[in-house]
């Protein structure tokens, strides 16, 4: 049979192949983008190194722990928040603006596949961040608790997954209702406010009267859950439930309001 170059042979690739291709593409773009890399790696490293250096100079400790042992888990939580919330919101906002989501909407990749690809890309980038930040933490003398390593690992995995789900759902909600520029501004502002006052890097207990309120924020809950895993080798059930609650709220809001264009 002779076929010419453009003879039709239509058909979608297998769903798994499409989802993997989409996640690889999104992860690559996220890591290539300077501002996103700043949020994902540079700022958390600066916060960790700067925080530890400052605490050493002043000679303070936190809740009876060395500063690095408290700050390192906090910075891991910060990294999850920056990627799952700020990066996802900004990237998705501009995907809407540039018509990327529209074009993909005419491709064989279904919307569920697009969402799954995003989640996989996100988890990949978060894993990469955690590797880098754990290495920096250990180099600074961080000693995570070894009281019950399996429990720590389960607690950390739960915290990272639920935290990622909660923040990504909220990030998609913002990106789905606002214009790209407004999303950019709001996502960065919220990130800065939560980094400073949201109980991520520092324990909620350090915020005095506001501490009980901050523990209900997704940032405070994520910070507490990660610290519970790596400082006390315990599973902070209350914080994990708070994160799950935010994930549901975010998912419902997104599903009700998201506009693909």
């Amino acid at each position, binding site marked *: 049979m002779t076929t010419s170059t453009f003879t039709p042979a*239509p058909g*979608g690739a297998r769903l798994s192949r499409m989802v993997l291709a989409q996640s690889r593409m999104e992860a690559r773009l996220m890591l290539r983008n300077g501002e996103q890399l700043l949020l994902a790696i540079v700022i958390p490293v600066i916060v960790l190194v700067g925080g530890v250096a400052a605490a050493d100079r002043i000679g303070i400790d936190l809740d009876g722990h060395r500063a690095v042992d408290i700050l390192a888990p906090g910075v891991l939580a910060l990294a999850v928040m920056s990627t799952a919330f700020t990066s996802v919101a900004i990237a998705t906002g*501009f995907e809407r603006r*540039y018509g990327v989501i529209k074009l993909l909407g005419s491709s064989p990749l279904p919307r569920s596949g697009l969402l799954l690809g995003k989640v996989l890309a996100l988890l990949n980038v978060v894993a990469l961040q955690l590797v880098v930040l754990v290495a920096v933490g250990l180099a600074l003398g961080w000693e995570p608790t070894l009281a019950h390593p399996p429990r720590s690992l389960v607690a950390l995995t739960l915290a990272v997954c639920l935290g990622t789900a909660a923040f990504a759902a909220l990030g998609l909600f913002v990106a789905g209702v606002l214009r790209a520029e407004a999303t950019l501004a709001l996502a960065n502002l919220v990130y800065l406010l939560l980094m400073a006052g949201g109980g991520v890097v520092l324990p909620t207990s350090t915020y005095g009267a506001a501490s009980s309120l901050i523990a209900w924020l997704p940032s405070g809950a994520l910070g507490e859950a990660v610290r519970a895993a790596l400082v006390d080798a315990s599973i902070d059930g209350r914080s994990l439930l708070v994160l799950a609650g935010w994930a549901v709220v975010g998912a419902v809001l997104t599903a009700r309001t998201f506009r693909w264009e």
Partner: protein
Amino acid sequence: MSTATPAVSVDGLVMRYGDKLAVDGLSLEVARGSITAVLGPNGAGKTTTLETCEGYRVPQQGTVRVLGLDPQRDRAALLPRIGVMLQSGGAWSGVRALEMLEHMASLHAHPLDTTMLSERLGLGDCGRTPYRRLSGGQQQRLGLAIALVGRPELVFVDEPTAGMDPQARRTTWELLEEIRGDGVTVVLTTHHMDEAEHLADRIHIVDRGRVITSGTPGELTRDGRTATIRLVVNRPFPDGAPESLRAELGPDTEVRQLDEVSMLIHGPADSMTLGRVSRWCEEHDVLPQTLNLGQRTLEDVFLELTGRELAS
């Protein structure tokens, strides 16, 4: 699926944005294996109609069938079989041109060779250029490559040559003719008459949300009641020449002075008109050097049907 089913059939489509009626009972059919142009001024409802066929918009009234399928209900079955070129955008700003094309290829079962395709479209030199640094014409060509890479049966191309230089435009036309030769159905929107006239097997002229006439380019431009006469004379026209010539020719005529020695006359296509133009020149002591009864163009067709010019 029988090949007798039209590639696209739109029947009585109505689309409204708020108070604005974008599509007002539009009906058209597209035969398989053809290039069909939807021609009309900006805002005529071309893009809205296309986006309804592509499944982006739900018809508010009327029915739309593409390859015999309902673009809403049968979305998952339809999308792999069509290619879509958006009017603009569609790629991440930081993605490289070839990387984007390869990504779209990876979503298909039997994609075209991306190197061949990008070379055919003259994108070979900018494969590693980020999308945001591509020229408008390069972005258009990448958009067309994306529409074709999945080897679709039917492609929708929205203003395919907007922003292209004349050479890229010609390359694009040749490519569209080649894919038609290979059995791909092409639906294109354009507001360039020459594009429709050159490429299309069939043209639907759309104005204010309706198809006002359809036919092959030959059918649409044959047997016109009006013609365009081009008049060039040996020395400058006297003042008030267009008005006095129109008075001579009668109310069905339009006269437009192009420069001090040439005019375009739009009027009845008969020898009486030519005779009157000739007599007017004699009376005003100018010698016609060109007195040319032009062929009727799609522009004339549009003007006749709407009383307005197509140029947008």
